[in-house]
């Protein structure tokens, strides 16, 4: 039961609009995000990309990690990124993780397009909606653009036999704040 999500790319010449619908979560993000990595690979220079999030219902922190990584790859090669039409709950989560400080957000794709400045003369204007071909999930997630060390997890330990969680028998005693 993989959560429903879809990523399609609309090619406007120098600007690509990535339409993301459904819910991006742990069950599907590694596969779905490959459509955008393929787009970036196919447009290695000066890619102007808009994420249309109008029909995106949910995204988790890993999805945001991928968007941050893609932002690094695109801007390092002279491109620009914008977000358009995010629902309030999506904008809320983008904001709390700080992505709105990196990527400007707009209420419409037109405003997002305008933020990129005038189009280059060579840009074709015909819009064509092309479904992106999902690629198999990579064995290893794409390397982050910023090569800083990530203390995400310590060294893996052997997997021990499963220990069932016993049924709860006592009411929860509220814990004192540990870190905040």
């Amino acid at each position, binding site marked *: 039961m993989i959560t429903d999500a879809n990523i399609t790319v609309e090619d406007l010449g120098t600007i690509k609009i990535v339409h993301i619908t459904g819910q991006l979560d742990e069950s599907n993000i590694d596969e779905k995000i490959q459509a955008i990595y393929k787009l970036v690979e196919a447009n290695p220079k000066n890619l102007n990309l808009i994420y249309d999030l109008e029909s995106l219902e*949910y995204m988790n*922190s890993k999805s945001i990690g991928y968007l941050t990584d893609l932002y690094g790859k695109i801007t390092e090669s002279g491109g620009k990124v914008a977000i358009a039409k995010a629902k309030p709950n999506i904008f809320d989560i983008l904001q709390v993780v700080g992505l709105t*400080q990196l990527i400007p957000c707009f209420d419409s794709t037109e405003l997002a397009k305008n933020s990129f400045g005038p189009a280059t003369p060579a840009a074709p204007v015909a819009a064509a909606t092309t479904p992106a071909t999902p690629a198999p999930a990579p064995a290893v997630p794409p390397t982050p653009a910023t090569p800083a060390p990530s203390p995400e997890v310590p060294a893996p330990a052997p997997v021990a*036999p499963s220990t069932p969680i016993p049924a709860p028998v006592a009411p929860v005693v509220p814990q004192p704040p540990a870190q905040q």
Partner: protein
Amino acid sequence: MENNLPSTAPTRITITLPTNAYFMSGIRDFTLTMIKNTTNFPEKWAFRFQSVVDELCNNAIEYGSAPGSEIRITFVCVKDDYLEIDVEDTGTGKVKMTKEMIEKLYHDRKEPSYVFSGIRGRGLVKIIGEWSDEISFKDRPEGGLIVSVKKYLKNARQTDTLPVSNTQPQTILIN
């Protein structure tokens, strides 16, 4: 659906799941509906706790409980007071963490100088930590961890609407 329980009586719901992310869509739906219908938290916080629960469970599934094992989610709500969510793993997963280890990891990542550079790692501090009033970690006697978060209604009501995106870009900060 109206919650007619006395406001001081805790409502307690426990869900045990196999270690599999495929169930999380249903858990998110349940969280959203439960908070909207049985608490007086503003809608914004129903969406926020949907993310908090998802991130807690994803961590437990990814690191704390092995495939074939399980995780447990417990919701405790005292109407007009607080919502608490506990997520337990069995400690059989690929990363052996003690209370002290995860407290240090959490503390380190809360430092302003910490740079989140990988695909993963934002959930615990940036979402769970930011959207909770209290967070605590406990070792389970049988092995594994319990991560507990708590949100008080009085704090949640200080702002009760979701943000809206800007028509103008915000300040762009690049390291």
